[in-house]
């Protein structure tokens, strides 16, 4: 009965597969670059092999294995604290290429790896913290853009039927409501599959570099829930907006993304004119409109309480808000689907 939608989902998942495949290939390329000497471990091994290097290894009382590499000739000092499965802390101090007069400081975090680099008085200090604990929600949040892309690809399912196929869709032994709900239910399941598939790929990609030490707390669980509900609500929004259209659903898809990002940008623009009553009225209007936007709700949890929409900040409110939008949009889509005629 819903075979057509199943085929559409499979086509959409192929696009997801291509995106994830590209990410996978990029990860392999990065891993190969690391193998060729870019990793902290390889750098330490290289330092240990230097003719002037003096290496000492001790087992500390707290379970750490500390390796110190001193190379007076190169003015290099390396300390490696090996915590076993819990990763390593590596400190490398060496002369810098940067002029003595310049001081710099920078931090880069990539997954479970954290790199801090500072340059002072012609010497550079780099601290690598590897395999630090990572919230499982981070992997899910990385899957959010892909889930949104997939939701957009398969959205407007009812309008696609209305584009010349109603005579096939509506002459099946099933009611219109059941048909619409089943089609949307399948699509929502497809979104869930996309999220999970993306997380699996990201997990494997992470494991190219190190075994991740994942943990999950209540906040993380809430974020994971949002990663499912927000793309689903986004899908439902596009489907509801197009359910009674025959050919204009492409325009709905095409304009949805710009609108979803232009409104928050306009809010930011007019908020900067906080003294103006006109600007305040515009911001209030835009915030109200933006409340209908599930993507805006997702950004609520980052703490910009009430700035982007009327839904209060916080993960809990965002989850409830996105679920309410999902249910309302699905209901609106079904109501319009009932009214359509072939």
């Amino acid at each position, binding site marked *: *009965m*819903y*075979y*057509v939608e199943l*085929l559409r989902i499979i*086509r959409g998942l192929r696009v997801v597969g291509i995106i994830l495949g590209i990410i996978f290939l990029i990860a392999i390329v990065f891993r190969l670059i690391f193998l060729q000497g870019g990793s902290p471990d390889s750098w330490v091994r290289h330092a240990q092999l230097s003719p002037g290097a003096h290496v000492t290894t001790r087992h500390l009382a707290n379970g750490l294995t500390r390796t110190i590499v001193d190379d007076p000739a190169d003015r290099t000092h390396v300390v490696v604290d090996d915590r076993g499965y819990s990763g390593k802390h590596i400190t490398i101090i060496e002369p810098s290429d940067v002029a003595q007069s310049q001081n710099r400081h920078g931090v880069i975090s990539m997954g479970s790896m954290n790199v801090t680099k500072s340059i002072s008085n012609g010497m550079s200090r780099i601290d690598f913290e590897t395999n630090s604990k990572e919230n499982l929600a981070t992997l899910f949040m990385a899957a959010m853009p892909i889930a949104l892309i997939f939701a957009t690809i398969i959205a407007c399912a009812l309008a696609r039927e209305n584009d*010349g*196929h*109603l*005579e*096939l869709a*509506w*002459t*099946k*032994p*099933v*009611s219109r409501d*059941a048909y619409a709900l089943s089609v949307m239910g399948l699509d929502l399941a497809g979104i869930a599959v996309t999220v999970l598939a993306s997380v699996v790929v990201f997990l494997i990609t992470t494991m190219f570099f190190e075994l991740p030490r994942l943990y999950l707390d209540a906040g993380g669980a809430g974020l994971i829930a949002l990663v499912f509900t927000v793309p689903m609500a986004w899908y439902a929004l596009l489907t509801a907006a197009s359910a009674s259209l025959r050919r204009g659903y492409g325009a709905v898809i095409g304009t949805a993304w710009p609108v979803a990002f232009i409104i928050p940008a306009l809010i930011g623009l007019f908020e900067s004119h906080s003294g103006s009553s006109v600007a305040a009225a515009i911001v209030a209007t835009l915030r109200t409109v933006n409340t209908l936007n599930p993507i805006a709700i997702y950004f609520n949890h980052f703490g910009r309480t009430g700035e982007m929409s009327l839904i209060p900040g916080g993960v809990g409110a965002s989850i409830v808000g996105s679920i309410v939008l999902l249910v309302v949009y699905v209901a609106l889509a079904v109501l319009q689907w009932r009214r359509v*005629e*072939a």
Partner: protein
Amino acid sequence: MSTISIRHLSKSYGAFLAVNDVSIDIPSGCVFGLLGPNGAGKTTTFKCMLGLARPSSGEVLYGDRPLAPATFEDLTYVPERSVLYEWMTIRDHLELQRRSYARYNPNRAADLLALFGLDARKRVRSTSKGMRTALAIVLAFSIEPKILVLDEPTSGLDPVNQRAVLKLIIDAAAGGTTVIFSSHQIGQVERAAEHIAIMQNGGLVLTGSVDDLKYEQKIVEGIFETDGFSTNGFGGDARISRVEKTGRILRLTVRRDSDSIASDLNGMGAQSVRVVDLNLEDIFLNAVDPSQQTADVVEGA
């Protein structure tokens, strides 16, 4: 017993009345032809029958019940234009039928594919109009329905496949299926249909069994020595619905007493007189537009 009863069906789009108070009873197990010029309201009638469009008034009953989702277990519809999914293959469409209908018969589908020479691996977008029509026919007949609604089912088909579709329709009816179809090719309707309804401007102008309609009216044709014969008197004759004079030929469409009228022509000095049955095209043209006749109409009732 009627399988389908259409009662006082009307459908308007804004101010435009597409179907106007149409009532038709379609007997069970028959082939029913719905005829009418373009824009007569045939497709809209079908859509209202199948719940694809909401009637403005009236009702359609299947047996004694209104249309319900379960009705489609035993009913399929082939619309006038292709509604197939262009990006799907022919096999995908068959799989859709298999998953949708309990009555789907894969062997029947395979036979029909072979009959029309369709390659199941082909995508619909790479098929011709005729192949799409053929696929729609395959899909409809593969579920072995009890009711078939076909809107221009031979559109785009070559003569060989048109004949094949007609045979399928007749065979299906012989097996107890009620077939309702529309066609602009009146010869096809005449060959297959037992009952017809003729629509024009949204209204029903004629309905009945093809045999009865043919029996009711005859053409009496007389050929005279010169064209100087008089047609006076025929115009007021209640037995005659149309009088046409073309040169030496007098052609009378009569409602009854065709033999008596033939004798009258003999009495007028006609060189030869013959009584012929009306064909469906004559019945159709008489019903929808008398001006379509090629001969000069000199008098009419």
